[in-house]
């Protein structure tokens, strides 16, 4: 995960220090890209969203409240940018053309069988996530893939716990259907 940025660095960035903001970028760039890529599923678009998000963060840093975690705020910016991306007309046209590009470095490179399984699993989840609505996808990515607390997901998406559970239920149901086939495929190897 990412290392937390100290309040002094945030304060300096708020005061207009580019150097301090560079530290914030260094600390959060990896996680920002991961979230954007998991939501969008396209490397180029994810890069663009990360850049736009950090620029937006810089422009609105003076509105940052110390009681809110910087990561929560950044999550909110990224998710909103991704939801805007889904709303754009060009995206709707290209929705089904999204290429399966996985910028993933697997930890266990010495085990080709495990690597194959992981790639298969990733492909199944990626395919299933394409069937979800943008909000369901956001809830699924934040809660299940990023492992955030319910309260934090609600804060990022500005939704109630009931709304979150409803979206999460439909997302997991869709995932479950796709993962069943993966399960059968897995057991057939045994």
């Amino acid at each position, binding site marked *: 995960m990412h290392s937390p940025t100290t309040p002094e660095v945030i304060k300096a960035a708020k005061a207009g220090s580019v150097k301090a903001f*560079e530290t914030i970028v260094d600390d959060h760039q990896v996680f920002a890209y991961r979230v954007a890529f998991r939501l969008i599923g396209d490397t180029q678009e994810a890069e663009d969203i990360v850049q736009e998000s950090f620029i937006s963060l810089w422009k609105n840093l003076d509105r940052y409240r110390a009681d809110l975690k910087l990561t929560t705020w950044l999550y909110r910016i990224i998710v909103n940018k991704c939801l805007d991306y889904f709303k754009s007309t060009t995206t709707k046209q290209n929705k089904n053309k999204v290429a399966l590009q996985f910028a993933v470095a697997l930890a266990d490179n010495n085990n080709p069988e495990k690597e194959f399984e992981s790639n298969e699993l990733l492909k199944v989840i990626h395919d299933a996530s394409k069937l979800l609505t943008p909000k369901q996808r956001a809830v699924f990515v934040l809660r299940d893939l990023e492992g955030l607390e319910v309260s934090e997901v609600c804060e990022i998406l500005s939704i109630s716990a009931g709304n979150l559970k409803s979206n*999460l239920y439909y997302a997991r149901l869709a995932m479950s259907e796709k993962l069943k086939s993966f*399960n059968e495929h897995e057991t057939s190897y045994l």
Partner: protein
Amino acid sequence: MKCAKIESLIYLYNELDEREKLYVDVHKDGCASCRSLFVQRGQQHIWIREVGAMPVLAASPPRIKRNIMQAIEANKENSFTEIINIVTMYWLRASLAIASILIAGLFFAQRSADYSRTVLNSTNSVSNGIRLNTPQFLKAHLKRRESANQISFYDCLKQSDSEFLKNLKAN
């Protein structure tokens, strides 16, 4: 009916409170299909967590960072230029506004002076029973000017001309 409700709760097992979890646990202990779904969901949860733990790396993180920092530097420069522009614009606007007020003030001051003079003359003429814009009015006006020892612009030009001709002849 009860199984349908439990199934939906199984999908949200990690989000349930202790009482709801107990409710699901008691039911699945006595229901094979719900128990099977619970086990299946547990396995799926592990797989999803496995995918969540996989690192997702950008093709070129330094390029992304470079682009961000360049955009921020440009934004900072733009903000400075914007402030200068705003200040210049306001300064210019304020100067123009003050100049306009001064010109308007001078205009109205002159106009009110002319007006009071005209009104005075007109009032005198009218009080003498002479209508405005008539030869009688002009005659009375000229008479008054002569008595005040004021010469008209035309006379002034005429005098200047004759003096000029005199000088010309003398030379």
